């Protein structure tokens, strides 16, 4: 099927002369001063739809392919008119699309950054030239006011392509040591169809990836129009493929072995499922999920401005916005005044047909969504909330909801805790800034927040305290391609936009195999020995304590313990594991941690978290240097331990210790130097991109480099203000456990680092599933890593499995260091507009 190009004819400029009926309307308008109809023409959009007889296929490999799947229709939610029909993409369709993308991948990378920049620039230009058609199509399909699609969705989408034309040009030089991840599967939602397409497609193409895009089943049209425009613009076949369909098609994209990365924007529940499905596959993943974003109004705010902010915050796009400021937290002293003003403002909100240029709110995207929102309202009412809506008539036909304010809801009510994704604002009060932060963070989500106060000291105190990827001070729903957008917690991970967004489409170029030198077990030189663990008899076979080290008459028996909350702790289970040296002889015992030890360690880390995060970089560096100092003093002893554990010769063992000392110096150095940035966003404001600590990081250590491989990630985590729960190497735990004495004497605050040994299969899953662990680093990369990824879906902690073994702990490169610092931080963008 070949779609015709839309022939857009201009509407006649000359308006017809006024007639008699018109005259009476003029006189009436003179007296009542109402807004008359101000419709945006839909002729061009209709012509475009008719040009393809209102039937769409998939866009695969540069051609339009008739779909074989069941037929689906998309309708305008404001009036129910049929817009077009399209197919649910089948696994075969997805397979074809992935193949096309795979085929296009090589040439797309070979043409280089500059050529890709030209393509992206051309896409931006082509979009711009057809911006009104896109706006009208978007509003018809989604139901959003044409004002929004015209002034926000489409211009922002265009801006993304311009911005990323820049990244295409710069990526080869700005991201040395990285390459594109490959074929990317992208699944986008229905609330900002073209904008979400731009957020996904632009960085992917800029990085050198090729794309299989699945638009939402309610709103496929702008993506199909985009495919047409991209085709016209000469984007090489297969670089962008669009397969329409519902969730089943999305699943096919996610499961397809050919997609190296999945980028998803949508609900947290679906995001969780995608996390589970991709677990263990090695697919890269970025998720931009739901939110219940706080909108915090202090008594020092310009209340009228804050009221307008609420309008922009929660009634933008009928509230169908992932970052909608749907939880109003207002200081008790101004609550009455704020709500009073807000209700008055709500009376003037106009709800109407999306193509009417004088409305504030359009239609809800689909009956299903409308029913869902009304269900929440009923539940809220049942919970005792007062539901207030302005007394204005809504359009009769179509799916419309008025702006809604809920007060007096108990904090446990679902209207307070759940993302409603509709025009519903819930209001709560607070007394102090600390309470405001506590309430703001009392949610599983962490996408965005808005803070209103004229007191900048207050704003800049509160902004870092709120767990959210974006914080808007005295503004809301501000977006720009130069500033990354993405969540904390169950709002997902990864950023879209800016430099931080580009990382999501790049992966480190893996070292050549064998590049990793090591204090790996000496026996590893023989291939057979690699598979045999240095533990002579696997504990799981023998059972605990069945192989104790042979007592040595002239040595005092040595007991290694776990290190939890700054204390050496015996394992909860009361078992130890025999540890064998490189020759297979059992020479020591290690405590066998269990799930309760994990619980205790995570608890201790949580206790230490806030304080450590607030320490200055200078102080964190001092402690890391001190650890290095004390480690260096024990160089010979630790080298000896390493030699015993791994069979490494004295030189190699010392090199491991020295590498550990050096990584402490390296990350101490970075503690006060891994600065954030200020983005160049095109508004009169400062957009701070702050590198914030992730929180509690679980670290699963590799067997090779049993010392440097522990110290390295711990130092990286600590330097950026994180706390760590470390699961040391299963095979070679002793050198790591001996580090406890070093850290104990180096002013490492209790709980900041916690060390666990044991059988990884017994402790790592508990850590991976723990809801108070914010990230997991896995340097082992085995089947258990896949399990961890699956288990992480509970709280959607990001799991980093170094599957390619890119980090060389013994000889860290600039790239490795930067990667660890980046993994150990999350970018929070704080928008602070200014002016007098």
């Amino acid at each position: 099927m070949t779609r015709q190009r839309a022939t857009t004819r201009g509407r006649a400029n000359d308006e017809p002369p006024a007639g008699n009926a018109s005259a009476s309307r003029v006189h009436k308008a003179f007296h009542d001063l109402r807004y008359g109809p101000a419709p945006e023409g839909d002729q061009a959009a209709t012509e475009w739809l008719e040009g393809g007889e209102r039937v769409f296929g998939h866009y695969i490999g540069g051609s339009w392919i008739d779909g074989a799947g069941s037929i689906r229709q998309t309708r305008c939610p404001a009036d129910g008119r049929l817009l077009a029909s399209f197919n649910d993409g089948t696994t075969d369709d997805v397979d074809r699309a992935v193949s096309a993308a795979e085929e296009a991948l090589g040439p797309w990378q070979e043409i280089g950054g500059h050529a890709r920049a030209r393509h992206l620039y051309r896409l931006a230009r082509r979009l711009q030239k057809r911006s009104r058609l896109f706006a009208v199509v978007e509003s018809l399909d989604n139901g959003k006011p044409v004002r929004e699609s015209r002034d926000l969705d489409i211009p922002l989408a265009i801006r993304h392509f311009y911005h990323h034309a820049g990244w295409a040009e710069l990526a080869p030089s700005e991201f040395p040591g990285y390459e594109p991840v490959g074929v990317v599967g992208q699944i986008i939602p229905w609330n900002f169809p073209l904008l979400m397409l731009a957020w996904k497609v632009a960085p992917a193409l800029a990085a050198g990836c090729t794309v299989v895009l699945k638009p939402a089943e309610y709103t496929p049209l702008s993506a199909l129009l985009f495919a047409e425009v991209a085709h016209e613009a000469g984007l090489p076949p297969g670089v962008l493929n669009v397969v329409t369909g519902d969730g089943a098609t999305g699943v096919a994209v996610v499961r397809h072995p050919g997609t190296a990365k999945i980028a998803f924007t949508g609900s947290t529940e679906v995001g969780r499922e995608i996390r589970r499905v991709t677990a263990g596959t090695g697919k890269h993943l970025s998720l931009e999920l739901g939110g219940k974003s706080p909108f915090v109004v202090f008594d020092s705010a310009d209340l009228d401005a804050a009221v307008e902010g609420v309008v922009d915050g929660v009634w933008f796009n009928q509230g169908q916005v992932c970052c909608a400021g749907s939880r109003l937290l207002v200081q008790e002293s101004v609550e009455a005044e704020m709500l009073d003003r807000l209700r008055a403002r709500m009376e003037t909100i106009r709800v109407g047909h999306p193509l009417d240029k004088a409305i504030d709110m359009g239609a809800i995207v689909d009956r299903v969504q409308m029913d869902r929102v009304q269900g929440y309202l009923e539940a809220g009412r049942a919970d005792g909330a007062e539901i207030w809506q302005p007394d204005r008539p809504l359009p009769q036909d179509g799916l419309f909801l008025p702006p809604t304010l809920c007060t007096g809801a108990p904090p446990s009510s679902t209207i307070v805790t759940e993302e409603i994704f509709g025009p519903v604002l819930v209001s709560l009060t607070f007394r102090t800034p600390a309470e405001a932060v506590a309430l703001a963070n009392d949610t599983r989500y962490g996408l965005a927040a808005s803070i209103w106060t004229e007191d900048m000291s207050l704003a800049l105190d509160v902004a870092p305290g709120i767990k959210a990827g974006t914080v808007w001070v005295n503004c809301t729903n501000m977006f720009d391609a130069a500033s990354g957008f993405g969540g904390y917690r169950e709002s997902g991970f990864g950023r879209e936009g800016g430099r931080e967004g580009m990382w999501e489409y790049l992966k480190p170029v893996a070292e050549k195999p064998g590049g990793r030198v090591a204090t790996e077990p000496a026996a590893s030189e023989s291939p057979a020995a690699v598979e045999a663990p240095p533990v002579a008899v696997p504990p799981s076979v023998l059972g605990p304590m069945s192989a104790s080290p042979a007592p040595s008459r002239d040595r005092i028996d040595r007991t290694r313990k776990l290190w939890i909350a700054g204390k050496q702790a015996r394992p909860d289970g009361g078992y130890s594991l025999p540890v064998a040296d490189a020759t297979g002889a059992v020479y020591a015992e290690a405590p066998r941690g269990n799930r309760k030890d994990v619980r205790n360690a995570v608890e201790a880390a949580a206790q230490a978290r806030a304080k450590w995060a607030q320490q200055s970089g200078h102080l964190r560096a001092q402690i890391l240097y001190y650890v290095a100092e004390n480690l260096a003093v024990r160089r010979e002893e630790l080298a000896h331990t390493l030699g015993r554990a791994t069979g490494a010769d004295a030189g190699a063992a010392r090199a491991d210790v020295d590498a550990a000392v050096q990584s402490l110096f390296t990350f101490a150095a970075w503690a006060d130097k891994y600065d954030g940035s200020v983005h160049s966003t095109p508004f009169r404001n400062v957009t701070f991109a702050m590198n914030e600590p992730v929180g509690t990081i679980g670290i699963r250590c590799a067997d090779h480099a049993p010392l440097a491989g522990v110290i390295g990630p711990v130092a990286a985590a600590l330097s950026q203000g994180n706390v760590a729960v470390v699961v040391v190497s299963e095979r070679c735990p002793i050198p790591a456990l001996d580090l406890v004495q070093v850290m104990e004497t180096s002013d490492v605050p209790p709980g900041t680092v916690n060390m666990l040994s044991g059988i990884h299969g017994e402790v790592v899953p508990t850590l991976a599933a723990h809801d108070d662990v914010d990230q997991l680093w896995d340097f082992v990369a085995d089947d258990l890593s896949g399990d961890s990824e699956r288990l992480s879906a509970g709280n959607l902690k990001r799991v980093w499995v170094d599957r390619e073994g890119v980090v060389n702990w013994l000889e860290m490169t600039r790239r490795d260091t930067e990667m660890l610092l980046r993994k150990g931080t999350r970018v929070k963008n704080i928008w602070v507009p200014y002016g007098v």
Partner: protein
Amino acid sequence: MVVRESATSVGYGPGRHEATATAHPRNPGAPLDLKAVRDVRVNRFAADHRARTLTTRRSVKRDSQAGWLLRAVTMIDLTTLAGDDTAGRVRRLCGKARRPVRTDILAVLGVPPAEIRAAAVCVYHALVPTACEALGGSGVPVAAVSTGFPAGLSPFATRIAEIRESVAAGAEEVDVVITRGSVLGGGWERLYDEVAGFREACGDAHIKVILATGELGTLANVKRAATVAMMAGADFVKTSTGKESVNATLPVGIVLARAIRDYHRATGVRVGLKAAGGLKTARDALAWLILVKEELGDAWMDPRLFRIGASSLLADIERQLEHHVTGRYSAFHRHPLG
């Protein structure tokens, strides 16, 4: 209240929030509430943002637009404030005020000419008698700029005397300027006393207090100054003299509207808003009308509560009205000069 009666005789229907459209109560003023003045908080970015989006959120087209533009005409204080103003110039302007739009255009629009006249004619003191004579019987009041307009830095007694003389000469409205230094120096009592003094000198004449917002430095100062002026009894707060380098901007309009709204919330009294300076196109006029409707409500969509001080604006509105009637874009020379 002669002026008001003639204005009501034009016959505006009741506003959405107002049951009656009879004589509009004047602002009796209120004690100076320093706390309210000092608590003022205005966020510039948010005001700018609101100003930017007000006119994209609302659109008035075709017949509605023609109706709105005619209403805008009735809100104009036709103004001439130049050193070379003469009796002849002022008489011509008054003629335009009596009949601002060609009657053939009004006929096609179906609006009786009696309903369309300017809100006032605004001149310097020396031309008040000429204007009063030229407007006699039209119901269009004469407004005098006063108190050492535009800088307002002549002796207080002189300024008071100037008001009295203009009122004696027949001015029914007086546009006074404030001492900007009182705002910039935080002299709120001084400002209050000054405006209260002006108000007293005005007697029955309505007082429009020009804040010269372009010279007040910050939007917060604009709101504070407006608040004090209203407490001191202003019937209108007015953006500018037209002589400052920055005149009536939409963000300033928003801030003034919100000050008026707050005063209404606190006292139940409706104070008027006058935008002056820089409004040149029909589009500007529509933007201000949208601002007033959205921020203040329909009660203010009335010449008793909203004025536009302008000289060239009317000509552009006339062109747009003719375009509405003929379907052809119009030219300035097709409309009688004001």
